[in-house]
């Protein structure tokens, strides 16, 4: 491996972080790892902004009276929170950060298939985020993240069209990432990396990419149609102009329900990696978990109408969507049971990523099972637009996806940075997030069941105690999220230096054959994969090898 002499005269191995250090070398990089880091920094900012909006919402709801924010500002707050968290944090979170960083290494590739497209996706994301942020700052919008028509297209004030263009661009960023990963997985697997030797994170990313490519164009065009109706008054969704508002909901949820799986499927991939690495066991039922990812991606496209049971959709269509929604529970349950079976009789190591992964399983199970109440038409009518819904999707998208994101961050952090964070603080943070999350959102199930509607800034006195509990829990959750930000940044300078390739003793090419931090080109030469994924039963046999260089023939016929 190449080395370079740095300022103090000591020899340091060249890695993707130090081989070029100018700002331009980051902003114009084609290196998938650096692009992953660019995404990490960007989405952290939007998570913080979305989190501030959430904090204001919970502060308002700590008391029954609407005394902190006016109803108008409150509407804008939950819109800011939803738009930033969904389009600018959750959708790109695991795919754009960890998919970019580890997926090529996992399959033995030296980069993604289209490095320039990869960088372009980040620029699309940033421009989209900038436009959306301008719209949110410049007076804000109050449509909610769903941009429901005809309110958004004909009545809402503010920069709705600008926010929509921002989301449109972020959508194309997501499509670019999806295309890149699909082609990379199909075309750039190292020799010996057969489909059923792929790590399950790669299977999950494949399924996610399918949704990104097949679903995102629909929402992008749909939102553009809202902007067209808003600016040109062409009747598409507004009944006054001859349009149909429920058509908007069909088109919007055709993407936005599968979008939930864009957020959770990569998380499931992470959990497979982490559970296996810290149980020192092959993932139980590998093939079932792999195909469950595909099944979730495909069935997830057939269930969108469950968002519309009470909005005027035909009862017969609702019956169909209800039935199909129940089907999604099957592959989700397959995954959960198989993770538990993986831990069973494994040599479990209670490191921070594992604690996060276990937290994911607990919260995702609650989120998933409460989804069944909403899949059933009768209970859905009672619970729709109440806090039950808010609690349910936060259990899946925050309890599930963000727990998995944090698990991934703690799992691959040493590989990304060459530094280790303090384990005890990380475990404490995982615990705080788990406890704080449940305190925040479990009371909301009860509130929703009691009939408290979402999106109001005041409520009757009898719901005060549960709301106060929820707001108190949000404080704990906030501390749980702030802690990693502090100790991870701290670790960049003061954390233990990690020089070994495989600090967790995990299996996989990114751990066994890639240096820490990785070489700019990942592998010296393209590896040859010799073993299946998670082959913990044969610790003496590496998952892959780097072939020896071909001997240089001097004086041959070309010489």
């Amino acid at each position, binding site marked *: 491996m190449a080395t370079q002499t740095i300022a103090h005269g000591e020899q340091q191995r060249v890695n993707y972080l130090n081989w070029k250090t100018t700002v331009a070398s980051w902003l114009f990089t084609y290196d998938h790892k650096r692009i992953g880091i660019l995404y990490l920094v960007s989405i952290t900012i939007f998570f913080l902004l979305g989190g501030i909006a959430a904090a204001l919402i919970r502060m308002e709801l700590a008391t029954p009276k609407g005394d902190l924010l006016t109803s108008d500002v409150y509407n804008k707050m939950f819109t800011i929170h939803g738009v930033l968290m969904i389009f600018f944090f959750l959708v790109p979170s695991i795919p754009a950060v960890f998919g970019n960083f580890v997926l090529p290494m996992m399959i033995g590739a030296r980069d993604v298939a289209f490095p320039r497209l990869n960088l372009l996706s980040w620029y699309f994301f940033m421009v989209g985020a900038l436009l959306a942020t301008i719209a949110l700052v410049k007076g804000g919008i109050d449509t909610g993240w769903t941009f429901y028509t005809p309110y958004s297209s004909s009545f809402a004030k503010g920069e709705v069209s600008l926010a929509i263009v921002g989301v449109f661009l972020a959508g194309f960023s997501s499509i670019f990432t999806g295309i890149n990963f*699909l082609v990379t997985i*199909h075309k750039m697997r190292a020799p010996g990396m057969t489909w059923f030797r792929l790590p399950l994170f790669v299977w999950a990313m494949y399924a996610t990419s*399918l949704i990104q*490519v*097949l*679903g995102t164009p*629909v929402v992008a065009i749909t939102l553009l149609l809202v902007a067209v109706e808003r600016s040109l008054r062409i009747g598409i969704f507004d009944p006054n102009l001859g349009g149909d508002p*429920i*058509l908007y909901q*069909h*088109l919007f949820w*055709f993407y936005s329900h599968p979008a939930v799986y864009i957020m959770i499927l990569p998380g499931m991939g992470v959990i497979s990696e982490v559970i296996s690495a810290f149980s020192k066991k092959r993932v139980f039922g590998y093939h079932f978990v792999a195909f469950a990812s595909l099944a979730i991606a495909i069935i997830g*496209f*057939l269930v*969108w*109408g469950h968002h*519309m049971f009470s909005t*005027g*959709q*035909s*009862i*017969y*269509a609702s019956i*169909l*969507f209800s039935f199909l929604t129940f089907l999604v529970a099957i592959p989700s349950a397959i995954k959960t049971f198989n993770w538990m079976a993986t831990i069973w009789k494994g040599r479990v190591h209670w490191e921070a990523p594992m604690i996060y992964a276990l937290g994911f399983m607990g919260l995702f199970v609650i989120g998933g099972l409460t989804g069944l109440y909403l899949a059933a038409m009768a209970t859905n009518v009672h619970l729709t637009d109440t806090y039950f819904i808010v609690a349910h999707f936060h259990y899946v998208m925050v309890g599930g996806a963000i727990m998995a994101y944090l698990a991934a961050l703690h799992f691959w952090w040493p590989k990304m940075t060459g530094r280790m964070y303090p384990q005890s603080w990380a475990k404490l943070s995982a615990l705080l997030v788990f406890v704080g999350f449940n305190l925040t959102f479990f009371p909301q199930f009860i509130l929703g069941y009691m009939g408290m509607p979402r999106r109001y800034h005041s409520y009757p006195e009898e719901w005060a105690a549960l709301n106060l509990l929820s707001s108190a829990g949000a404080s704990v959750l906030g501390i749980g999220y702030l802690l990693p930000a502090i100790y991870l940044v701290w670790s960049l300078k003061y954390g233990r230096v990690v020089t070994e390739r495989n600090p967790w003793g995990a299996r996989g090419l990114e751990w066994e054959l890639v240096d820490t931090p990785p070489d700019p080109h990942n592998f010296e030469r393209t590896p040859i994969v010799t073993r299946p994924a998670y082959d913990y039963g044969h610790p003496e046999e590496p998952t892959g090898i780097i072939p020896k260089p071909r001997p240089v023939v001097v004086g041959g016929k070309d010489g």
Partner: protein
Amino acid sequence: MAEHTAHHTEGHEHHVVPIRVYTWTLIGLLILLIVTVAAGFIPMPVWLGTVVALAIAAFKTSLVMAFFMHVKFSGKLVWLFAAAGFFWLVIMIIFAYADYITRPWEPVPGF
């Protein structure tokens, strides 16, 4: 197409499509645009108008995909993904229509 030049490098094929193929595709698309507008002036039931408009749109899309996007000259995997795109569109339309068609049906009179 005999005039297509194909360079084979490590399993990749790069087709150089003659400019007249693109020109004819463009002319075909413009003709279909005229047909779309003309169809709008022909009196026909709404459902038939929808079918005709969608059929023309599908044909136009096929031309763009086949020639401009090079699907015609690509391998089976690209064909599969292109077909998946169409299939997903069909899913979206059929399931949404399942709502529109059955909305007037009443499970009991006065529902």
